[in-house]
């Protein structure tokens, strides 16, 4: 089984982002960038499938600037076999990313595409579902467990109120949620080995995909700020205030 793992380079989750004063976006200058945390989980799952003998090859793909190569290297250091960088300096919306990934799937014929449920920058939660639609494949979203049997895939999904299991045909697209696994740290020898693994460089044009945005960003602003309230001394005072002042109990 061949597995494709799309990965995105995003602002590191520990960074407190700042909105630019001219409201054109979020300041990305000199900000630490990392692999989208949900994508780390999808890389880990793909590598585990390979270690278990279920997968034969793991291909890491990223759509982004030259530096997205570092994100692919991280995936290679975790155990992916080779990489494809689709290089562009433009902002690429989920629909366009899905179209590029579809073209890569047409060329590579993977049996499974496994990706993070959402990126922590644009919080769209779209790419996996869109790719499944374009390919006409089923989708197992927000996965917390995968079981392969008889050419089908059982996906346990995190849904409102609990867990749901669906059985989907292969090939399939899976998007992963937090509890699927705990991603490994790449060891130093594996980081060194990853430097020798091949990364193909492509462009959106080579896949004949129009990446021009459909959504125009008019502005980006700070969220409404909440002011700190008062400190209460005792539980009795708290209950009194909630009752008479706030009127919420």
């Amino acid at each position: 089984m061949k597995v494709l793992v799309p990965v995105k380079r995003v602002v590191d989750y520990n960074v407190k982002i700042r909105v630019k004063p001219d409201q054109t976006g979020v300041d990305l200058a000199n900000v630490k960038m990392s692999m989208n945390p949900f994508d780390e989980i999808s890389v880990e799952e793909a590598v585990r499938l390979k270690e278990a003998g279920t997968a034969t090859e793991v291909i890491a793909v990223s759509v982004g600037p030259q530096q997205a190569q570092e994100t692919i290297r991280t995936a290679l250091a975790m155990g992916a076999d080779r990489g494809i960088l689709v290089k562009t300096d433009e902002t690429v919306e989920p629909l366009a990313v899905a179209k590029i990934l579809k073209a890569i799937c047409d060329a590579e014929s993977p049996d499974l595409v496994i990706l993070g449920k959402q990126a922590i920058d644009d919080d769209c939660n779209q790419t996996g579902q869109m790719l499944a639609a374009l390919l006409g494949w089923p989708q197992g979203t927000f996965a917390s467990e995968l079981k392969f049997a008889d050419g089908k895939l059982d996906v346990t999904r995190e849904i409102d109120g609990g867990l749901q299991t669906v059985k989907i045909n292969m090939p399939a697209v899976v998007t992963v949620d937090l509890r699927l696994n705990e991603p490994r740290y790449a060891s130093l020898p594996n980081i060194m080995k990853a430097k020798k693994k091949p990364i193909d460089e492509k462009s959106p044009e080579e896949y004949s995909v129009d990446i021009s945005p459909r959504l125009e960003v008019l502005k980006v602003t700070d969220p409404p700020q909440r002011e700190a309230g008062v400190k209460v001394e005792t539980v009795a005072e708290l209950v009194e205030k909630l009752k008479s002042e706030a009127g919420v109990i």
Partner: protein
Amino acid sequence: MSTLVIAEHDNASLRDATHKTITAAAALGAPVTVLVAGSGCASVGEEASKLAGVEKVLVADDPALEKQLAEPMAALVISLSGDYSAIVAPATTNGKNYSPRIAAMLDSAQISEIVSVESPDTFIRPIYAGNAMQTVKSSDAKKVITVRTTAFKAAEEGGSAPVESVSLTDNPGISEYVGEELSKSDRPELTSAKIIISGGRGMQSGENFAMLEKVADKLNAAVGASRAAVDAGFVPNDYQVGQTGKVVAPELYIAVGISGAIQHLAGMKDSKVIVAINKDEEAPIFQVADYGLVADLFKAVPELEEELGKAGL
């Protein structure tokens, strides 16, 4: 052209998320049609027809739609899409699952989790876990939108829309429902509860959440948790409030032993009143709390239960 709202329901009754999505959809300015897709869901269609602002209800009753799996849902909505200029769904796990599939089939860029409708083509949505707000204008002829339901008021009763039935003609048959394990609880659901009491790493163990449950029972509240408490294995993931869990906006949110990481604040900072109980007075949660109590939670929480009892709750 009309706006199509995809209803969230459990085949017996409409979920509150639907009422809120109808309000967001009505703000687009076009007549609203509600699609109830499910199995044995005729009564849900009747319920939707009585809501104010609804012009028409479509009921698609088919065993293949019982759990609203993305593949048949997308096929159904695409078959109906010709009549609509916008397709709007709640950003529940169901909506998040099928909506982008519909959008891609329509070659439309989805606008996810809107919190405000500025005009029929311009919307505000949170990015970076709510640490920035993005205003976007869509140029797509058919817009596909998901709605962060906590940002909109619920549509009220006061309508009598006609109900029509439609059918699923083209189920791709590539997916099937196997089973569900839903958390059993008599308490309200996190996303619709008026009061929520959540515990963090400070709770120290899953057993200690029993203290919160006692308070919750007095207040008819839901019990939530921070990601730290989930990661530590105290409670299951569906308790999680935050960037990577559920986004809630109750009347009252009580944070117990929660430090207030950005990721948690992103999920609850739109609550009307926030209470923080934490022994560390420097904890960032106090910066967003309306009422802060610096105290050992193991003393304060049982005391809270007692005081609520005294107050007649």
